[in-house]
């Protein structure tokens, strides 16, 4: 029994492609899980989704031109951000609508380019991710992302707390909300650029949003939430790869599915434990 479990766990690791995929997903899980907590609590989930989808034309054009995806993605994010900033200035539209109009337009343009006859094979990987196809450069970039994310989040921890907790009081507490927003958005853009290779344009947001939402079900302190979110992202990401290996499902989609399954599972556990508490009677008042 133990031998067969060991074999089930060990077999995929014998494949060098899968070993790299496990490492890539683990690295993206650490960076995405930790960064995602701040994305969720600074209410940037919609921005993350928008930036990810808005960079599609850049990714497709880079693929068509044979350029590095990172370059195309960076240009795509820049164009999306500039488009949102410009559209937001049009009177009577409103910021949310401006984001929706620009991102839908860019995503449509990306889909149009992706469906052209000149599109090279492998474009599916851009949309749905291809963790099995990561290169040494991708792994190095993911490791760099982890270091940059953990360093910036550690340095900005107090300031991120202040701006997220009460933006209106930030200035009086010696914190520039604009600088903090900019740093967080820059880190978010970097994470999307690096993670898009492994998880794809359509699924990359899963690693930023699902783990923190799941971690929120088990702890109510930011420090613990950062650690729990990163752990949930790594464990469920690795579980997704095992699922892909044994069920012969698409790797990127399996990882995204496992991340979301962790959220559903932990939400259900919390709901059950709450129901038990309410059956036992109300908790004592906090005064």
């Amino acid at each position: 029994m133990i031998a067969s479990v060991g074999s089930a766990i060990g077999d995929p690791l014998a494949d060098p492609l899968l070993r790299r995929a496990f490492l890539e997903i683990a690295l993206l899980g650490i960076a995405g899980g930790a960064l995602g907590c701040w994305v969720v609590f600074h209410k940037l989930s919609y921005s993350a989704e928008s930036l990810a989808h808005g960079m599609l034309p850049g990714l497709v054009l880079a693929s068509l031109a044979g350029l590095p995806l990172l370059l195309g993605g960076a240009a795509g994010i820049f164009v999306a951000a500039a488009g949102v900033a410009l559209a937001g200035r049009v009177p009577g539209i409103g910021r949310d609508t401006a984001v929706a109009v620009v991102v839908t337009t860019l995503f449509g343009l990306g889909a149009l380019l992706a469906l052209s006859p000149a599109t090279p094979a492998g474009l599916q990987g851009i949309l749905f991710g291809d963790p099995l196809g990561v290169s040494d450069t991708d792994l190095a970039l993911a490791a760099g992302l982890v270091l940059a994310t953990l360093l910036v989040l550690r340095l900005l921890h107090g300031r991120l707390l202040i701006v997220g907790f009460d933006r209106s009081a930030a200035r009086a507490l010696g914190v520039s909300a604009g600088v903090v927003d900019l740093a967080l958005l820059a880190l978010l853009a970097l994470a999307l650029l690096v993670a898009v290779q492994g998880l794809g344009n359509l699924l990359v947001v899963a690693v930023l949003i699902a783990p923190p939402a799941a971690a929120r079900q088990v702890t109510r302190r930011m420090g613990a939430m950062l650690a729990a979110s990163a752990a949930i992202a790594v464990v469920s990401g690795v579980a997704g790869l095992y699922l892909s290996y044994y069920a012969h499902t698409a790797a990127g989609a399996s990882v995204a599915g496992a991340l979301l399954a962790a959220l559903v599972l932990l939400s259900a556990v919390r709901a059950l434990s709450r129901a038990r508490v309410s059956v036992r009677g109300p908790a004592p008042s906090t005064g």
Partner: protein
Amino acid sequence: MRDRGAVSGTALVRVDGLVAGYGETVALRDATFAVHAGERVAVLGPNGGGKTTLFRVLLGELDAREGSVAVPRCAVVPQTERSRLDFPVSALDVALMGAVSRLPWWRRPGRAERRAAVEALAAVGLGDRADTTFGDLSGGQRQRVLVARALVQDAPVILLDEPFTGLDSPSAEQLEQLLASLAAEGRALLIATHDVGQARRWDRVLCVNRRQVAFGEPEEVLRREVLEETYGAAIVTLPEACEAIVPPHHHHHGDHA
């Protein structure tokens, strides 16, 4: 003109001929007053009357268009409704936020700052609540945590934006005692409020309605004519209390003028 730190005489805050506003709009003009160490000053005025504008100028968030402002470092206690109750922070985390402005950007709060935050929570009577999630505290306790955060900032002047809004009587009484003890320690407190009865118990009253209507001791300022000029004809008098009060529709949040 603004002068941080150089305050003449014993006044901690000195405002002279202040005019301030946003874009084309003048939100406050003709403000001239001084606040001394140990004084509690009630800032009375309708929504849009210029209370928040005055606080923003004192905090250095908004420049004076005319006049001069001499004020040392200020801490602010905002309305608790502006804080996010779903945010994963404890009372200690919130109190520690007061230390950030005193640290270089690369340094995280250490043992000394943590000790200061614990002491500040103890000073506001919440020493045993340090680990409680902010959103789980009662309204009065949350307000006191924000006062503790201001204490960690260690500023000689504290600005409080309608701190009694939404508090029940015992909590309001507890907060008022806390403010009295802070003033007794030599801090100057400017407290935006709509409660005329409360303002009567403090040291000075500043009435504003897009301009300074009056400033002085409560018995000079809190007269019907001044309150009518401050709040318009909306004030009412309770016969049994013999006291002008401001009707409830003036008590709402989001006053940014």
